[in-house]
């Protein structure tokens, strides 16, 4: 068989298949089979080209079959009256239904987030959702991470082709919150706000690590803010959250956007089966670095502030004794319906 004969056979097959109501039979046709077996009569050097042409032919036939099937399918589709409340029927009216309320559930992370927001707003903090795609300025530069500084590595950020960053912390909102509160400061009103939302880190997923998780962040700025104020605000939050008096402790931490920087821990609450001497690390915090205030045009000689940020997923895992962080984004009903 030469390529010329092949081309003729091919064109014939395609023409027939296109015209046919059952084009799929041409995929099994003797004509096609003979073209396939014909390859052994083709000169060795022409075989690659012949094989390629054969594959193209099979693909073309398949496309014809698919197109016909799609046409059939859409012909079978009956348009409906989208303005009607329910379907038309010959006899009994067709009624759509809701599902039993007892099947319903809110996501445990979202219910807990609502609760955290409720406590902080109750304490006088405004609440702002954080962005899920931001720029380098808000992720790093405004937060006193110099360009190219190794401290940026610790955040394992994702990047888009355009250089945008799915934020690795909710602190991306800090500069915006500070700017928005600047005028209030001049009137003697403190800036008090939390930001909350979804954050992302480029790390492999296992039972205790997720690349997608939730954080809650807070800032407070006034003429008189102190580190002692910060410790009290955080303790107050956790005491409300756990409904009991709590001991707190700190350890030094390094975050370029605070100075001093601390890690904050609470004594494990009785509600979580905690015993004295057991500690839970909850968040990072510190006094806002003067450069961060400056980046928002706030005079650090006149105003001071504190900021903190912590993970939401961990709070929820602790509260329910959840063994695997991957459950949160798996969308499996056997997990979700435990939280009705």
């Amino acid at each position, binding site marked *: 068989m030469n390529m010329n004969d092949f081309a003729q056979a091919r064109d014939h097959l395609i023409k027939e298949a296109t015209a046919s109501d059952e084009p799929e039979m041409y995929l099994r046709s003797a004509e096609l089979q003979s073209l396939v077996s014909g390859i052994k009569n083709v000169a060795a050097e022409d075989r690659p080209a012949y094989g390629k042409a054969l594959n193209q032919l099979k693909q073309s036939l398949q496309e014809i079959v698919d197109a016909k099937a799609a046409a059939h399918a859409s012909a079978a589709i009956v348009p409906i009256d989208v303005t009607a409340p329910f379907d038309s029927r010959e006899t009994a009216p067709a009624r759509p239904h809701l599902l*039993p*309320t007892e099947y319903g559930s809110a*996501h445990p992370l979202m219910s807990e987030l609502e609760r955290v927001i409720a406590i902080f707003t109750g304490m006088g903090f405004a609440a702002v959702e954080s962005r*899920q795609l931001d720029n380098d300025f808000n992720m790093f530069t405004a937060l006193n991470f110099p360009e190219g500084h190794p401290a940026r590595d610790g955040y394992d950020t994702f990047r888009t082709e355009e250089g945008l960053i799915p934020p690795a912390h909710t602190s991306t909102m800090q500069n915006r919150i500070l700017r928005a509160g600047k005028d209030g400061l001049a009137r003697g009103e403190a800036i008090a706000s939390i930001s909350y939302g979804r954050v992302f880190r480029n790390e492999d997923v296992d039972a205790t690590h997720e690349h997608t998780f939730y954080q809650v962040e807070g800032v407070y700025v006034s003429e008189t803010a102190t580190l*002692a104020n910060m410790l009290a605000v955080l303790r107050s939050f956790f005491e409300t959250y756990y409904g009991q008096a709590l001991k707190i402790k700190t350890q030094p931490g390094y975050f*370029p956007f605070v*100075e001093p920087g601390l890690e904050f821990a609470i004594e494990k609450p009785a509600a979580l089966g905690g015993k004295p001497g057991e500690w839970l690390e909850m968040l990072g915090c510190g006094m806002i670095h003067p450069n961060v205030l400056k980046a928002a045009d706030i005079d650090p000689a006149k105003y001071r502030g504190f900021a903190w940020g912590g993970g939401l997923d961990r709070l929820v895992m602790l509260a329910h004794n959840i063994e695997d962080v991957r459950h949160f984004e798996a969308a499996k009903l056997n997990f979700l319906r435990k939280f009705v």
Partner: protein
Amino acid sequence: MIISLNWLKQFIKIDMPVDELVTLIGARLVEVESVVDIGAKYVGVVVVKIAKVMPHPDADKLHVVHVDDGGVTPNVVRLENGLIEVVCGAPNVQEGLVVAWLPPGSTVPNSYDKEPFVLEARALRGVVSNGMLASAKELAIGDDHDGIAELDQTMAAGTSFAEAYLLNDYLLDIENKSLTHRPDCFGIIGFAREVAAITGQTFVTPEWLAELVPDVVVAKDASDLPKISAHVEGDVSARYQLVALQNIDATKKSTFAMQTWLARIGTRPIGAVVDITNYLMYTTGQPMHAFDLDKVMAVHPQHSAELVVRESREGETLTLLDGRTINLSNSDIVICAGDTPIALAGAMGGASTEIDSTTTRVLLEVATFDLYRLRTTQMRHAIYSEAITRFTKGQAADQTAPVLAEAVHMLRDIVGGEAISEVVDVETESEDELILSVSAKHINAILGADYSIDEIAGTLARAEFVVAHDGEDTLQVTAPYWRQDIHIVEDIAEEVGRINGFDAIAPVLPQRPFRAVMASEFEQTRSAIRSMLKRSGANEILTYNFVSGALLQKTGESAEPAYHLVNSLSPELAYLRTSLLPSVLAKVHANHKLGYDEFALFELNKTHTKRELNDENLPLERQMLGFAWSATDKVAKRSSGAAFYQAKHFLEYLADSLRVNLRYEPLHGSKVPEWLALHATVYEPQRAAVVHAGDIAIGIVGEIRAAVRTNLKLPQAVAGFEIEAELLHAARMRTSNYKPLSRYPGTTRDISVVVDNATTYESVVKTIQEQLALLPVTTSLVPIGIHKKTDADEKTITLRISFVDSAATIDVAMVNKAVDTISSLRY
């Protein structure tokens, strides 16, 4: 980073138990991730001297050895002279050697953490060996297994091996990340200084390290010395020092004591030269590198040691010590002999100038490099050595001179090396000394504490800050050269708070006017959506923002408007989703497989496309609500009606609860805004509707296209919607539409109208409502049924109309007349 407690004790006094120390370090310096007791490995191991070596009567390669343990070991069989007989196969066994003996009953140290091997007195070809003499590998000191470990000759027989080498030690695993700004703490001395300060001791830096302009003695008899120099281009190195040494025997080992220090923190002892550079790096935090001087000269076109430190150039290559040949970019720093790169600065030496067993002369480099460039080098070439970890923290330029001088001393003492050149010293930038004026008032205002000026001065002095009183409340504070992280008063406040313990500060709530704050209105709407959908039996899910190109393809979405990650974890997570519904639909099949026949899933989350920017010139974030209802064929058969009406029913229920009036137009043939058009590909256009709030299109509801169902393994009865939640929120009616109940009875009438198939339910209702609006009474209308015979061109719509008069009993005659009118209308 691993810190050895006993190594710390070489520089400071530590009396407290290790757990107390760890707690204190955690509270005032850095988190300790774990503590390992290595002393337990060495229980029973004794330093012995080999008194006599005899051939084994029955084995060529074995020797019978008599060792002297000073008589300290109980319950062991001794010869008449008190010595102990051991059989040994090591080639280096020799009378007079001081070695480590593992007596019967002891455990081989390097097996301790795995499968402990306990020794016993055992006959080896007829001669009973009482335990064994150990190799370095068996002692878990490196991996030398060629012979028995030769301990330092100064060790007395009978000493416990662990005591002799301070191996009754604890290793503290330090969480590096929070010391990113503290290069000094990456050396034992720096770490010890901090521990001193937090335990109330005043630290004194060893004299050799405090001497910033040390003498280096140069041997007189240096012959055929090449020209040695360094030239630093640009700002790649703040300080670059070199010195040449001769009489280096690269095969010589370092002291066994030094080997034990390195090995316990996880660094393999190699030979004296490398061990000394590593030892000094761990001691001070300052890495260094040794080149083979003669190899450098061989590479250099003028056979000299004139080095150039510069940025590499695109197209250059370098073969590293580990054998890899790397392509250099224009932001790596290289050390060059002439113009030929011989080392990747701060990261790894080159193969062409590597020290080997033939080396006799070395060129020792002690320098600092620009940490920003090193950071990109580290990532680009995936080099994560102890040295580059320290360099990227930014070691102090002042430190190179004392470390170089100490290295020369140690090379002289341990291998007999001699400096044969003056120290080449290039300093391209020098840090200005910074004096901070610090008041107690300011420090206390930041911390909310009450430290006196003397307490502050004392605290800083313990960490070797230079403090001078300047008036009653003010100090002039100069940070020591290794503290380049100190720039502003806040840094001093941190030192004062930290060293004394932040936990000593009493928490006090800020005072401010109390004023209630609510979650944002949108957040309240979102919360209402969540609770209404939960009440309707649906389940809230969360799924990733990152989706695969395959999912986009399966749902007919284009990848073009989707942001693409350059460093996604996998192709599954490469794109930022432009709509939510595909993610929700992708979770349906797995839940049917779990045995759930009918369910509804929803997600509230954001989407992004390249097409829409906000006023910050960032991608507009659309708050979306994605919802899918799905039923297996078995269940769908029992239920009634098209899946479309299922999804719409949930949406209507939600909209009613939010007090939003929605309108539906067929998707097929509708013109939709561009952002919404991107969502349309998952639906069957003939069985889907564009959802409007007022005049604004806010989303789409519909059945899922057959191809998408096939691709995602969905059953036939599946429908969903995706609504822009902020637009839904904006459409909420803020005022209540409650009207007082009438005290008078009303009446209802059912009315059926027969209309053409193409006439919509909405238009029928609208026509009737217009008629009803003419009446002076309140009316309302609910659907009762829509009947249509198969293949018929007409359908019958039945509605129930309620009539209520707020001021009187309803006028039945008027109602009847109205119904007659409505029945006679054309639709």
